[in-house]
């Protein structure tokens, strides 16, 4: 009655592999139903998110388990389970054992992702599955070769971690594809998204021609980060790639306290702040729509130095001004009060510096260096983070647009692909302001100007849905909130099935990855961010940290210039 183990007609199923079950129904859109062979595989053996292969006649399919279900041929089994019937107690579990796997059985829902032709050339390439196997095709746990066939290494591929339950195999990301479109890294706090993001950034530095600009809110990416679970420090990008990463800071004091030597200090002129920036900060500053809008009237009144002059007004002057420019008094007072708190922002410089704030950063980016901007103490102030990243990004984006247009006109080189990295993205990309901020613009215009976003967030539901659906690749660690899970999957294929996988991620060290950079959705246990990883990134194991080991001549010169003529 049972089919023999392994359809061996093509010899492509490794001998001795235990068959999990057989395909008994389903569809390409809904996923396939696989009845478990209870004599060989139990529901407890198959985790949601793990990989299986389905041996068709001419194709081998790779699929992800999206659900496990207990089923019975007849409802009687549900109403009268064997052990509850009088007289059955002494049968030594005979009836239960007989019924298990026959009229009561386990069923998997699997989603076919990739397929590879069998019997063809040895190096057959796995492609998106456009067909499904026939009835009763045998299903096996995926082997390491299967994983390798799907996540075949290309130039520039990056080993992110192991698929669920297969520690010996590696899932590779196509970093070029990753940098090509915007990327989202999500996860509740403490799920490891910072590590995941840092690893992706390291991969970008190491293996692509793209440059990145990292708005480092908690100062975790530049010099060193914290591994709270193990209570140790881990190397930041600057330590891994001293010659390719440049750190700037808004808070020199803090950087020095942490033992880091920033390559530059960023100062932003009051005159660089535009009323549009205030609109973006509406939520962070807790301003009403009316109050935020008065910034435009104030700017029209004071022209260039509007912010400085407005902040210098006394309370009485504000009252006068309200009458003069015809705005609601209390709205103007609120705006004034909130902006006064900016007096504490040490990075706001009095005198106009033109484009100087962004200039140093742009110069580094154009030279192919990655830039980490550490916020130091200002990272704890959302308004400061939003203000600075929004403002700098706007400037940099303007430059990139100009370069790109020149290049299109045959005058100059294409600007380098630029990845802008922001945390707490829901502060910039809420539905009501996403249309106004530069980040919303970048997300929507895709890579027209060679600029993409990498957003890291713990509350994806707060991000504009249009922006979410533009993300090319999404990596999500565990999320607790239903709305967040739905938001992460927004606009993706096979949403219903992935939802189930996403909901069951471990609370640490597991991420669902799907989109452009991977051939099919996969649950990954990210690799350890440790000495092995450092070594792979090119840092000798056990190397002294704290000195710029691989400082090039050009860098040394730059450093000395900076020391002699401080950037500010």
């Amino acid at each position: 009655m049972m089919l023999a183990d392994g359809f061996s007609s093509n010899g492509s199923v490794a001998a001795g592999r235990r068959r999990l079950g057989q395909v008994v129904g389903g569809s390409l859109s809904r996923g396939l139903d696989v009845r478990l062979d209870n004599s060989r595989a139990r529901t407890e053996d198959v985790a949601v998110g793990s990989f299986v292969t389905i041996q068709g006649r001419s194709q081998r399919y790779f699929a992800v388990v999206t659900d496990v279900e207990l089923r019975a041929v007849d409802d009687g089994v549900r109403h009268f389970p064997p052990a509850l019937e009088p007289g059955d107690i002494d049968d030594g579990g005979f009836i239960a054992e007989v019924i298990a796997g026959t009229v009561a059985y386990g069923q998997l829902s699997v989603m076919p992702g990739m397929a590879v032709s069998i019997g063809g050339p040895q190096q057959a390439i796995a492609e998106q599955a456009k067909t499904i196997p026939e009835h009763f095709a045998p299903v096996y746990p995926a082997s390491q070769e299967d994983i390798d066939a799907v996540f075949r290494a290309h130039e520039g591929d990056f080993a992110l971690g192991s698929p669920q339950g297969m520690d010996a195999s590696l899932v590779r990301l196509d970093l070029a594809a990753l940098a090509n479109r915007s990327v989202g890294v999500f996860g509740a706090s403490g799920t490891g998204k910072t590590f995941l993001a840092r690893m992706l950034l390291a991969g970008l530095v190491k293996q692509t021609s793209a440059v990145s600009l990292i708005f480092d809110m908690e100062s975790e990416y530049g010099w060193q980060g914290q591994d709270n679970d193990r209570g140790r420090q881990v190397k930041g990008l600057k330590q891994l790639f001293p010659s390719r990463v440049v750190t700037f800071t808004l808070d020199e004091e803090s950087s020095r306290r942490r033992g880091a030597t920033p390559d530059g200090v960023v100062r932003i002129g009051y005159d660089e702040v535009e009323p549009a920036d205030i609109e973006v900060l509406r939520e962070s500053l807790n301003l009403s729509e009316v109050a935020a809008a008065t910034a435009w009237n104030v700017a029209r009144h004071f022209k260039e130095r509007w912010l400085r002059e407005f902040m210098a007004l006394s309370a009485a002057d504000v009252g006068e001004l309200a009458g003069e420019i015809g705005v609601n008094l209390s709205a103007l007072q609120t705006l004034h009060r909130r902006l006064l708190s900016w007096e504490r922002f040490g990075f706001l410089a009095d005198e106009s510096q033109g484009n100087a704030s962004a200039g140093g950063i742009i110069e580094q980016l154009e030279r192919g260096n990655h830039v980490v901007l550490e916020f130091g103490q200002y990272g704890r102030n959302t308004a400061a983070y939003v203000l600075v990243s929004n403002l700098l990004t706007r400037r940099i984006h303007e430059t990139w647009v100009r370069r790109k247009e020149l290049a299109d006109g045959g005058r100059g080189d294409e600007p380098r692909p630029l990845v802008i990295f922001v945390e707490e993205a829901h502060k910039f990309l809420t539905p009501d302001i996403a249309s106004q901020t530069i980040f919303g613009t970048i997300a929507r215009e895709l890579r027209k100007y060679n600029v993409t976003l990498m957003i890291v967030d713990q509350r994806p539901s707060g991000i504009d849905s249009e922006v979410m659906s533009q993300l090319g690749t999404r990596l999500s660690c565990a999320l607790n909130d239903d709305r967040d899970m739905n938001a992460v999957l927004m606009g993706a294929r096979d949403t219903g099935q992935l939802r189930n996988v996403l909901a069951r991620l471990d609370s640490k060290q597991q991420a669902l990855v799907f989109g452009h950079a991977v051939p099919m959705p996969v649950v990954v246990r990210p690799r350890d961010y440790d000495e092995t990883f450092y070594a792979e990134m090119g840092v000798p194991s056990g190397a002294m940290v704290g000195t710029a080991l691989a400082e090039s001549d050009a860098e040394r010169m730059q450093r000395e210039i900076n020391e002699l003529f401080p950037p500010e």
Partner: protein
Amino acid sequence: MKEVRPGQRLAEVTASRTQRVEAQCYRAHSAPPLGSLVRIGSPPIYAVVLEIRHEPLDPTRPLAPRGADLETEEELYAANPQLDAVLTTRFTAAIVGYRDSAGIRAGLPSLPPDLHSFVFLCDAGDLSSFGGNFEWLRLLLEERSPASDTAIANLLRQAADTKTDSRKFLIGAGKALAVELSSEPHRMRALLREVGG
């Protein structure tokens, strides 16, 4: 009731149809028990005992009680030696398999056994090789009577006794039964209780 031994010849076919065999035992009260596997003729046809009848040889001469003044049943038979000649035991067996050049097969032979074919009680060897697959279950399950279900259970337990791992055999048989009876859960339960009990 008299003991019958495995391998013993005990009856002859008195009527046969494609699925059924009627046989009459050589001696009254010497029938193979319900669910016994019997071998009929040569090349052998296999059948399972489904019904046993002890009755007068001549149906036109019904029995009357004879022991009103006697103490025991043995005295009754001793006082009436003619009974051995006028009483008989007949049984019905369902055909479940046959032997051809390829070996023992489950299923129905193309012809039923000839009349007067000898009927043997199967021995452990036959039971063991016949128990190798459960295709014959389907034929017996079609009988749908309490007697046929008990016959199935008895036969499975006898076959299990010939196996080194009898529980494993019974679990396998139970699974085959469960699949066949998936649309009749109550009957399945009852039968499984008989098999496993």
